[in-house]
């Protein structure tokens, strides 16, 4: 069990989301950085999709009311345990009564507090993710508030973590071959042209060539980008259709919107492109006010990146278990 001692608004319980219900209008929700969630869970012996606390407003403070293990992944937010600094992405055992505190992030925006056994709120439609818009899932369908107590589940085969903890290399470093560095200070986001791409005529080139700024009107629902507007050559009347997170729509203003985890399930604005699945986590860590540039890729390239990421996550789960077992045997 954990007690929330201090939290700002918009910190919620999230897992990998609620797929399968878009056909009745239910958004998937889920962690904005699914990679951080999966790795955090892998390091604790949890199922990769166990629920965690997604922090996007800092500082945040909680108390463990029973002995357990935790890891903070995602944004590097100078976490400390009873005042002692915790290495980023380092899984540690804790005693009852210890206090974990997260400060302002130095890198990234969203941190995930994963706990052995996962956060055990009642699943709704197959998921523990909070749907703020639908007001269900997570903790009573709302964001966390100071004074909340959260139950944790059981791990089927817990890891015997060493006293110094267990850390993992930064995924961006481990997967450097698959994730290009920033270009002129802009985050590189890979995308595939979508259905109405051809309608943008010569403006389409500007979609790729300029660095777009993530506006302050950006949250878990979507990111509004600002830059030199792009417009279709002819107005288009679309019939409502299903959308997925990562879709880049262009409303009449000409400034694109990228739908994110809490995206609407249907849309009708022309779509110029769609961000590839394997780049959504990077977008989830992008800061308001920062810049990004879209780079065109093929499905084959996207599939290759996706395989590399899946391989890395598997490797973390397998190796962390192996290391803990080896230390038990040898020491």
């Amino acid at each position, binding site marked *: 069990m954990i007690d929330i001692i201090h939290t700002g608004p918009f910190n919620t319980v999230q897992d990998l989301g609620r797929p399968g219900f*878009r*056909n009745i209008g239910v958004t998937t929700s889920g962690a904005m950085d699914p990679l951080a969630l999966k790795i955090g869970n892998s390091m604790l012996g949890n199922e990769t999709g166990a629920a965690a606390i997604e922090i996007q407003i800092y500082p945040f403070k909680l108390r463990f009311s029973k002995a357990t293990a935790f890891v903070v992944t995602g944004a590097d937010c100078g976490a400390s345990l009873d005042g002692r600094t915790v290495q980023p992405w380092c899984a540690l055992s804790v005693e009852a009564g210890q206090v974990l505190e997260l400060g302002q992030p130095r890198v990234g925006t969203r941190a995930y507090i994963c706990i052995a056994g996962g956060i055990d709120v009642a699943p*709704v439609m197959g998921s523990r993710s909070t749907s703020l818009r639908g007001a269900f899932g997570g903790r009573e369908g709302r964001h966390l508030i100071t004074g909340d107590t959260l139950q944790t589940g059981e791990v089927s085969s817990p890891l015997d973590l060493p006293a110094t903890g267990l850390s993992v290399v930064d995924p961006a470093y481990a997967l450097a071959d698959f994730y290009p560095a920033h270009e002129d200070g802009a985050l590189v986001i890979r995308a595939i042209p979508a259905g109405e791409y051809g309608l943008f005529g010569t403006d389409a080139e500007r979609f790729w060539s300029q660095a777009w700024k993530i506006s302050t009107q950006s949250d878990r629902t979507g990111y509004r980008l600002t830059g030199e507007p792009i417009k279709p050559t002819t107005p288009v009347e679309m019939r409502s259709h299903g959308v997925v997170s990562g879709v880049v729509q262009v409303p009449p203003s000409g400034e694109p919107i990228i739908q994110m985890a809490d995206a609407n399930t249907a849309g009708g604005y022309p779509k110029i492109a769609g961000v590839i699945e394997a780049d959504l986590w990077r977008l989830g860590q992008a800061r308001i006010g920062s810049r990004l540039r879209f780079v065109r890729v093929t499905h084959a390239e996207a599939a290759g990146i*996706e395989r590399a990421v899946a391989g890395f996550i598997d490797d973390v789960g397998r190796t962390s278990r192996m290391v803990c077992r080896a230390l038990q045997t040898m020491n």
Partner: protein
Amino acid sequence: MSASAAKIIQPVEAIVLDRNGARVSPIGSRAFLLEATGDFDLAAQRRIWALSRAVELWSETLEIVPGMTNLLVVLKVTPEDPEILALRLLEAWEQAETIDLAGRMIEISVTYGGEHATDLAALCDRSGLSDREVIRIHYEGTYRVFALGSAPGFGYLHGLDPRIYMPRKTVPSLNMERGCVTIGGMQTGVAVLTGPNGWNSIGFAKLQMFDPMSSTPAVMAPGDTVRFVPASIEL
């Protein structure tokens, strides 16, 4: 019809296949949208329902989202070759017989006019009809749920009389209440969430359209027939 008959638009820029009244395009790496390019009618929607049933059974399908004469297919993993998938979708479309879903009849009791009918006057202005006529035309209609989407349990209803078509507002109402009976373009529906809404409200219904704790969370399902029953008219 052979695969070579497919007309490839913008071969370098975007993978869009368009043939035999349907068009397939990608949304990101894992999702593909098939749009029927013909009329916006029940016949097209019946084929979409048939296509949904077929595609739902594919082993690589994670989820399907039927829309208004279109179908979004979300795959479990990114395919290496999107054209193979697009052609398969088009083939399935060609083979899709029209089916009719044995839907239920849902009657929704409505308070027309009154405080929630914020856009009734504008609708009268546009249509040249009186408020009573607008309301009568709305409740005399018989509607089909074409698809659910946008918000939990929200049904897009087809069958609106063209005399009361009303485009979505360019500036949405910021806090439209759940239960508002609305018109958006050639569609009608009942708002399921309180919040920003670009549709035009002409009345109010108390029926709760969605319960996340139920085994069937949404009251409406594609294929259902909906009738609006005037409980009261406040003008």
